[in-house]
């Protein structure tokens, strides 16, 4: 297991930067939500990698196993996943209403259609 080294963390940082890049560069609102979800999922992998124990097994007590992976990050990430989907649902509902109001999901078009008052 120490053969993995730090590879998990480097991939996590690459994914975080990919998600951040999508959020910053894209002017399409739906693409931004997808980028945000990529960012969130990479953070989940970070936490679960921290909780992994070499030669351990899933944290379900059973005869014949003595080393278990750390259950605490699993609990935190379970909550985080569900909160993430709640945020995504609300964000998408806002996008639907923005589209009904302004006729487009592209930021540039929305800025142009905004009444300047």
């Amino acid at each position, binding site marked *: 297991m120490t053969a993995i080294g730090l590879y998990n963390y480097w991939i996590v940082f690459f994914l975080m930067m990919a998600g951040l890049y999508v959020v910053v560069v894209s002017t399409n609102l739906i693409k931004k939500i997808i980028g945000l979800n990529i960012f969130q999922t990479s953070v989940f992998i970070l936490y679960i990698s921290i909780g992994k124990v070499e030669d351990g097994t*899933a944290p*379900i007590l059973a005869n014949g196993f003595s080393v278990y992976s750390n259950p605490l990050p699993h609990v935190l990430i*379970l909550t985080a*996943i*569900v909160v993430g989907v709640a945020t995504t*649902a609300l964000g*998408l*509902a806002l996008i*639907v209403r923005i589209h*009904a109001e302004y006729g487009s999901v592209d930021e540039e078009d929305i800025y142009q259609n905004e009444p300047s008052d």
Partner: protein
Amino acid sequence: MEHHIVLRVVAKILIPIILLFALYVQFHGDYGPGGGFQAGVIFGSGFILYALIFGLQATKSVLPPSVVHSMTGLGVLLYTGVGVAGMLKGGNFLEYGVLSSNPVAGQHLGIMLIELGVGITVSFVMVSLFYSFAGYRQQELGHSETATNTQAHEQETVDNPL
């Protein structure tokens, strides 16, 4: 049109199994992977699959929106009710040891009840989200139109209420 028949037959076979599996995951969350959240999402997915294949109106006659909206609150009420029951029996909020005669049985009862509350809320919130998104599309269109946008499955429910 033939491929709709395959979808309908397979869905009729699979959806009861999906709902049963959701109940299995809910109540065996103590002994294996599973628990309230996973079971709630699987249960909600069963109803969403039914809506995708048989149409939104058929699903709303099976599971009316008023029922869905009231059940979402029921889960949170159950969870908080277990916490308050612990207080009424002399312990702290969400203390399970006092719920039953011996502490271990109390823990089992408390964990089962709150996982049930979580499962109920999550499943009906997923169905409610789907009703909101799919129902908005129908409100906007007002009537069925031919599928120019083949990107989403919801289109099938609008122009083909099977």
